[in-house]
């Protein structure tokens, strides 16, 4: 495949960026999107140009590092996949592909397609944990019975990899799908009950402080989320916050 790429280039966080056109040739349809980017970068390095900076680590859809806005959609046009798992067979020979960083005021660009997502980490630090002693006296995993239904839902919520596609997609740059998932994975389990009220209040407060927007329930995040995190988690977070408020 021969492709035209329109890529956001930005030297560093303080400089102004712009879209730049590139051409790549002989791209195999079996390549992943990041492999296609590798081909481009090799080409740029060989011609003495600065390669395009982009985030990636595992390249198997579990770390949540890769983060590209491809043709107007977070992680591109495929469903249930991260950018690293997106295959070039989703595109056609001769296509023009627009590649931008995940956009949100709380995700400032560091360089090119790399954005700073430490705002997510600060939300996690505000309450995304349970306080238990894990040093040597670990309890038997089966000593607290948990219903299959709750365990499944908690597990589904816990599959969120913190990639930020929900924020990038949201017209309000809202982080509620991410925070909803992180609140839910504990709210559904007995171990999460002790700190439940503080957790949701602190995490929501941090989310607001970081400058994420307000959910208007468009549902776009759920569609673009590579892990299929459900909007039900946002509703659960809202319930948890209401419960905490009347306590």
């Amino acid at each position: 495949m021969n492709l035209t790429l329109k890529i956001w280039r930005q030297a560093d966080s303080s400089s102004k960026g712009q879209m730049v056109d590139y051409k790549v040739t002989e791209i195999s349809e079996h390549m992943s999107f990041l492999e296609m980017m590798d081909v481009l970068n090799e080409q740029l390095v060989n011609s003495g140009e600065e390669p395009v900076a982009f985030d990636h680590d595992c390249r198997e859809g579990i770390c949540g590092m890769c983060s590209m806005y491809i043709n107007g959609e977070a992680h591109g046009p495929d469903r249930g996949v991260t950018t690293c798992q997106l295959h070039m067979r989703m595109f056609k020979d001769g296509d023009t592909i627009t590649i931008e960083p995940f956009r949100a005021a709380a995700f400032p660009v560091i360089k090119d397609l790399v954005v700073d997502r430490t705002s997510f980490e600060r939300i996690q630090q505000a309450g995304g944990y349970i306080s238990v002693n894990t040093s040597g006296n670990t309890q038997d995993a089966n000593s607290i019975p948990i219903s299959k239904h709750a365990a499944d839902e908690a597990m589904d919520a816990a599959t969120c990899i913190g990639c930020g596609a929900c924020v990038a997609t949201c017209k309000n740059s809202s982080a509620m799908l991410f925070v909803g998932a992180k609140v839910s994975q504990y709210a559904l389990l007995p171990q999460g009950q002790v700190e439940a009220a503080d957790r949701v209040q602190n995490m929501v407060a941090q989310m607001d402080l970081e400058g994420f927007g307000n959910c208007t329930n468009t549902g776009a995040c759920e569609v673009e989320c590579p892990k299929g995190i459900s909007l039900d988690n946002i509703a659960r977070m809202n319930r948890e916050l209401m419960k905490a408020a009347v306590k």
Partner: protein
Amino acid sequence: MGGFFKSSIGRKVAMALSAFFLMFFLLQHLFINMLSVFSPDAFNEVSHFMGTNPLVQYALQPVLIFAVVFHFVMGFILELKNKKANGVAYARNNGAANSTWSSRNMIYSGLVILAFIVLHFIDFWIPEINTKYIVGDMSGLHNGEFRYYHELVEKFQNPLRVGAYVISFVLLGLHLAHGFTSAFQSMGSTAGRKKNLQAFGKAYSIIVPLGFVIIALFHHLFNNH
């Protein structure tokens, strides 16, 4: 509790509560206006009751005005906050790939409704307040007959007004097509994501605006005098 309504989620809950009140109000307003199509006398009776009953006038009416003002002021505040939360605009953004038009344009459908509400106040509410509380005529009579039906029909003779009403109600339908189920989600209920309530919401967002359109067109087309 004070902190709750300052949080992003608390604001959405308040937004949804005001919206529920407005949707309930709309339903009763439609029922009363429908009477004007079937029975001018019944319409006059009910209008006179609503216009002079102290509970309606001094309790429900202020609540309604508060709900309307709160809803659109909070709508603007949230919209501004959300715009601030956006980074640089995307060169290419495919919103249609993952969400409905009505969900992405609540502020625009809302603005049209707001313009309508202003027009509606000038048309009906201000003259009504003037007659009743400034002039002090609580009789509801004009030349010895109830004036309400006559005034309604009079207003709908102007095709420009009827056109503006029809356009506004189409936008109201779109606002509600998303808003009805969205309000449940904001309240932390997943019911809005289930088939039954989605069907009900769709029916509500079509039937209620359509009802108002039919009333306006009926008086415009079949009630010349």
